């Protein structure tokens, strides 16, 4: 089913007799029922005010179309959404609704915030087929409950997004990236933490164990970038050799999309932890390939198919999500981290109220 308008979508939902899988661009590997409800027919930027840093678009609008419109005004989606196609081997056109529904945020999350932090308003169709709006298009809004945040990262479990309103930011004039040679994950996280504790506004902090480089990005006006990069070199002089990366934009795009894992076999997990817990977690993972982002707070891990990664980790503070793995593994282990009893009760209560018939993405989010 592929409605062309919000009203048509609402009508379809009201008439549903069996569960559906909600599909934006279909690039993020969401499993579920055979029957699909596609949002790609709801497409187009409805409002863009560069001077107010706001953009409103229908949910099915391609991310590329939005990025092109922003580029023309020297602006960007500062949360740097990842493109999952290379990692998951999917094709299709990533949509802004999919980005929001999955709360997809890239390396700049540590400085600028996550997708949910840039989401100002939503319109969605709930499980009864009602059109609901929440938030708006202004940057500060505490009028009533923040269902905007609740919808971000709800993976379609509470409603089908039809329109999203986003805060956008100026695109930096210059980018520089330092590569610090380190011995292991422990030293890497120390170096990243040292930089993130400095006043030099680091906007990317990653570590690829394959080449032993801790990577630090600074962005902004040219003079300021040059100054902060120099200051960081001094701050990090106690660590290994520091070089400046020549193609920083391409490097960070690769880290954002977890490019080192592309074309490699196995399941892929995404683990969110306190940064200084990362070295220990990496050791416990006993895996060949990891990639650290967010100063160590985000660990990408590639493990043999069907591995129960959470069992390997034992108890830990944070959560692990199966990003790439077959349906069997997802069913057996759960794509998302199991929740405590109290939290699970709240999650189920909300699903029950937003989608009483259970027609949206059943089984996906608790």
């Amino acid at each position, binding site marked *: 089913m592929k409605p062309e308008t919000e009203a048509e979508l609402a009508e379809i939902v009201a008439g549903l007799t069996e569960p559906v899988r909600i599909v934006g661009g279909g690039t993020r590997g969401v499993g579920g029922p055979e029957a699909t409800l596609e949002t790609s027919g709801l497409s187009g930027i409805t409002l863009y005010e560069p*001077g107010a840093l706001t953009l409103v678009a229908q949910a099915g609008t391609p991310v590329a179309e939005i990025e092109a419109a922003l580029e023309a005004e020297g602006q960007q989606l500062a949360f740097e959404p990842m493109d999952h196609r290379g990692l998951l081997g999917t094709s299709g056109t990533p949509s802004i609704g999919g980005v929001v529904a999955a709360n997809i945020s890239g390396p700049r999350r540590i400085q600028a915030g996550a997708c949910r932090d840039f989401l100002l308003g939503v319109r969605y169709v709930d499980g009864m087929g009602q059109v*609901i709006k929440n938030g708006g298009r202004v940057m500060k*809004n*505490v009028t009533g409950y923040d269902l905007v*945040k609740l919808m*971000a990262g709800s993976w379609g479990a509470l409603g089908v997004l039809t329109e999203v309103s986003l805060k956008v930011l100026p695109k930096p004039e210059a980018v520089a990236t330092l590569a610090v040679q380190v011995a292991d994950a422990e030293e890497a996280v120390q170096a990243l933490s040292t930089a993130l504790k400095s006043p030099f506004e680091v906007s990317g902090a990653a570590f690829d164990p394959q080449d032993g480089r801790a990577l630090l990005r600074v962005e902004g006006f040219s003079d*300021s970038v040059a100054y902060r990069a120099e200051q960081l070199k001094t701050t990090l002089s106690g660590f290994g050799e520091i070089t400046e990366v020549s193609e920083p934009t391409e490097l960070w795009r690769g880290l954002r999309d977890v490019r080192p894992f592309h074309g490699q076999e196995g399941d892929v997990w995404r683990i969110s932890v306190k940064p200084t817990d990362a070295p220990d977690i990496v050791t416990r993972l006993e895996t060949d390939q990891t990639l650290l982002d967010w100063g160590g707070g985000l660990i990408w891990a590639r493990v043999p198919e069907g591995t129960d990664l959470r069992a390997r980790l034992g108890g830990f503070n944070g959560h692990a999500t199966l990003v790439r793995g077959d349906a069997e593994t997802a069913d057996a282990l759960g794509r998302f981290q199991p929740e405590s009893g109290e939290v699970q009760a*709240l999650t189920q*209560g*909300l699903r029950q109220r937003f989608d009483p018939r259970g027609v949206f993405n059943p089984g996906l989010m608790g």
Partner: protein
Amino acid sequence: MEMPRPNPEILARKQAVLSRLLQVLPADAVIHDPAETRAYECDALTAYRCPPMLAVLPSNTQEVSDVLRICHEEGVPVVPRGSGTSLAGGALPTADCVILGIARMNEVLETDYDNRFIRVQTGRTNLSVTGAVEEEDFFYAPDPSSQLACAIAGNIAMNSGGAHCLKYGVTTNNLLGIKMVMMDGSVVEIGGAHLDAGGLDLLGVICGSEGQLGVVTEATLRILRKPEGARPVLMGFDDNEVAGQCVSDIIKSGILPVAIEFMDTLCIRACENFAHAGYPDCHALLIVEVEGSEAEINDQLSKIIEIAKRHNPVELRESQSAEESAKIWLGRKSAFGAMGQMNDYMCLDGTIPVSSLPEVLRRIGELSEEYGLPVGNVFHAGDGNMHPLILFDANKPGDLEKCEAFGADILKLCVDVGGCLTGEHGVGIEKRDLMSHQYAPADLEAQMAVKDVFDPKWLLNPAKVFPLDASESRRDVPVAAK
């Protein structure tokens, strides 16, 4: 402003509830004497007052849990209270409620600079969170004007902002995890020191829920390293519209100032008389602040000044010293106090798209003439968060009602141009009945469904946020049936 009538059934059981509370709390933590409960009769929206039936001051999460469990069993409404600085009546009691004050819970539980967070009990004041990490040159970013007094608990309840949120975001963008007691006394933990809480973003919906979903007792907050320096530039214009255009041009240029503050003539004069900040006498004043190293500050300010010059400012003054910067900010931060010296005032908090600024200011001016009440405008221009201050005389019969009607018109205007009723103060009771202007019945129903899940009996701060007639069927259930 209407409040629900107190439930006589509950009032009749005051002694029974009191004795149960005394079993779980020390005697000095339970306030029941009408002479003493009066201290909790209002928050910073002082036009409305009502002493609660009882007030309790628990010292830890277990005591909060015991209090809520008892009130849940007894069917008694609970109104949580941080420091009582809400401008929206968020902590206004009803005569049949128990006020749960969190002020005694003000400990720092953990500071972690490597992972850049602090964990505190939520009775701690906003400014003293920064105070706890200042020695290491860190700070907690959200900075509401009441930061000296306001508690983190209230900041979370109202999703508080401040002057510097253009760059650093508001409370919800700086909150990593919470420990929260539900109305039935159960304790949940959500999020933690990691950046993204898993599952549905419950943290996101709890923040800003005005104490209606649970009582947050502990919070993990993101702390940031202080910038090397900061400096404001003052600019004066003869026309509001031109000042608004200047703001838009600065933002479009790619510079992201840490704050852009706007004041109109009435506020400029009031603040100048009060703080002697050296403000020029003009129609519109902007304070634009940038951060970084000395060279970075100079670079950004020169770009900003270049933009401002294109708009023919009547005054353009870069601060020359830390002392001068402090003075410039003192003027702005004393705006409410300065206006308060002139008369009683009501402070509004609507937010508008920045592009609508000139139109909204013009319309507010027209309304001011129609109502015969002066209004001063001071606000966070970068994010469109307005703070019109309507002056009135509380001792003059009918003036408060007139002022409220004027305020409602301004807020409706904000909504009509694509904005919202409240940017950072919250709905409370003040804007409760205007919610239907911004939201359709189904939109409100979706929000109330969230409360149904967290607090099925509607006992936590029940008479706030939603229009009374919209929430009536949920609230107005006989105690026995709850």
